């Protein structure tokens, strides 16, 4: 009996190990390729470890690789993305928290309908929004600017952030709100003094989620930006598609890693809260 369970355990871990290796293989190839020289890459040993580690490709990808006609590397795109992602994540998260708070704890006539309509936003394919959104941005005078991109991401992110917060707050007992009302707290005081301090897990989940979504977005980035406001995903695309005489795989790989790094960092820093937040049920008083 014990032997049998040990056997199956070994099988399970073996399978998991193989799957993990398979899954991590592309990352391995990217990492090793990005620190190889072009000569070494041409030798054709895709899976071999680098003989001579060089960060030339990284520095080229960051500051001097050509994307179309400019040759300034990914740096300007990277900073565009940073300037877009921080306000967009902050605003959509805060608005989502307030929405969720109202929809769960201050229900009004028709609030369920409003919630259902917001929920609908989660399922709308964003391609459908391109044309009306372009017109809206034009009317507001925000077309082709970073603030325009922030606006688009806030609007499109609200559905998910509202859903996250609303579902989390539904698990907070209503009696807590009643007790706070009896204690003399009003709408905002209850929100800031009672609800927000209890929201750490869901705040983390929402921030990670929104950060990943917005940082990795390509569609809105390519449609609603101009030369000065292009985010990093567009920069990466341009870099990889700009063909000179030789295809510089090491630069492409380094650029892709630079583009992916911030989301990885956010996930590593807050990842344990992510899982915890997704699985957290009702908050017990």
């Amino acid at each position: 009996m014990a032997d049998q369970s040990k056997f199956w355990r070994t099988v399970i871990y073996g399978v998991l190990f193989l799957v993990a290796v398979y899954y991590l293989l592309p990352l391995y190839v990217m990492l090793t390729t990005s620190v190889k020289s072009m000569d070494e890459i041409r030798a054709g040993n895709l899976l071999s470890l680098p003989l001579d580690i060089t960060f030339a490709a990284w520095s080229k990808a960051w500051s001097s690789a050509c994307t179309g006609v400019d040759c300034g590397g990914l740096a300007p795109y990277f900073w565009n993305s940073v300037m877009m992602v921080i306000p967009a994540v902050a605003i959509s998260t805060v608005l989502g928290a307030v929405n969720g708070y109202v929809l769960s704890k201050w229900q009004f006539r028709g609030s369920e309908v409003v919630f259902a309509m917001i929920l609908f936003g989660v399922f709308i394919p964003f391609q459908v929004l391109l044309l009306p959104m372009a017109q809206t941005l034009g009317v507001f005078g925000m077309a082709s600017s970073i603030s325009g991109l922030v606006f688009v991401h806030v609007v499109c992110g609200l559905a998910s952030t509202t859903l996250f917060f609303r579902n989390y707050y539904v698990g907070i007992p209503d009696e807590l709100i009643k007790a706070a009302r009896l204690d003399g707290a009003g709408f905002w005081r209850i929100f800031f003094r009672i609800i927000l301090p209890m929201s750490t897990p869901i705040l983390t989940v929402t921030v990670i989620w929104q950060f990943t979504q917005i940082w990795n977005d390509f569609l809105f980035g390519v449609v609603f930006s101009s030369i000065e406001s292009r985010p990093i995903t567009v920069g990466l695309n341009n870099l990889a598609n700009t063909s000179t005489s030789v295809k510089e795989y090491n630069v492409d790989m380094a650029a892709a890693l630079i583009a992916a790094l911030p989301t990885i960092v956010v996930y590593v820093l807050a990842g344990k809260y992510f899982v915890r937040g997704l699985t957290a049920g009702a908050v017990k008083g």
Partner: protein
Amino acid sequence: MASVTLKNIKKNYTKDVTVIKNVSLDIQDGEFVVFVGPSGCGKSTMLRMIAGLEDITAGELYIGDTLANDVHASKRGIAMVFQSYALYPHMSCAENMGFALKLAGTPKAEIDERVKKAAEILEITHLLDRKPKALSGGQRQRVAIGRAIVRNPKVFLFDEPLSNLDAALRLNMRVELSKLHQELKTTMIYVTHDQVEAMTLADRIVVFHAGLIQQVGTPLDMYDNPSNLFVAGFLGSPKMNLLEAEVVAASATEVTVKLPKGLVVRSAVDGSNAKPGDKVTMGIRAEHMRLVEEGTPEALPARVDLIEHLGDIVLAYIEIPGINQILCMKLPASMTNLKYGDAINLVFPKEETMLFDAEGLALKRIR
């Protein structure tokens, strides 16, 4: 400290959904009043209206001499203890208890002073620095009560505060609540569906059913003189035995009724308004039925269906031939020799037998 006066209070959620139909009640200063009734009877809604957590559709609510209908919940001078304790999980117990004072801008020294005093009354001083999640159910309930005491309210409201505790702890806390009331002498309104809590805690019980007050009175008076069938069936454990019957003869001091199969029972009630042929319901409590020797006048034959030994008493479930209903009978613990199938004889003493007319209203008992 203050009295609470309800005048023709009504509550509708929508046009058609009426939860409280028309409730008027005077609660004296310092009184411990228990609202009791089955779930959905409107007792909790009534309490929340007094607290200011629900709007009052119609009628007037006075706390002390002030019309409180439109006074904000936090300004009514009330404090409430909830069934789920409703402690703020991210605050320590001391912060929980002082939160209302802090919001009201009370100086920190005074908050500490009052929290400390309340903690001493409840013997939770050693818990003050802990977070609620590190406490047991009973300790949490104490902190919740402490939070109410700190505010020094004119009226305490309790919404089923003991329902989440296990049986032993519930008993304990019940006694402590009684003591607390004696100590503080503040008006307390307590909602429960547990009739034992109601009987033991209350100065006066208010029985709610279907959005109306069924009866108000002291526990013993309610137990002995229920005004209608609902109250009779609700108070007392085991439930009062209720049997369909028909009036045979009626006078101002005694009514004789006929059970199915022609069994005749007399009851000492005022039968001035009853006449032979009226359909009535006969009620008798489990402890009032008497086991007698065969051949005793007016004895009814019965058969034992089930015996429950509770240690201090014996509950016998019996069936009278021809009456398709199980009756419950409370017997002394010494009656250990009764068993399933035994033939017994019993008497319904006429002083203890109650009658309810076709509308369910009690006929006045003569005692």
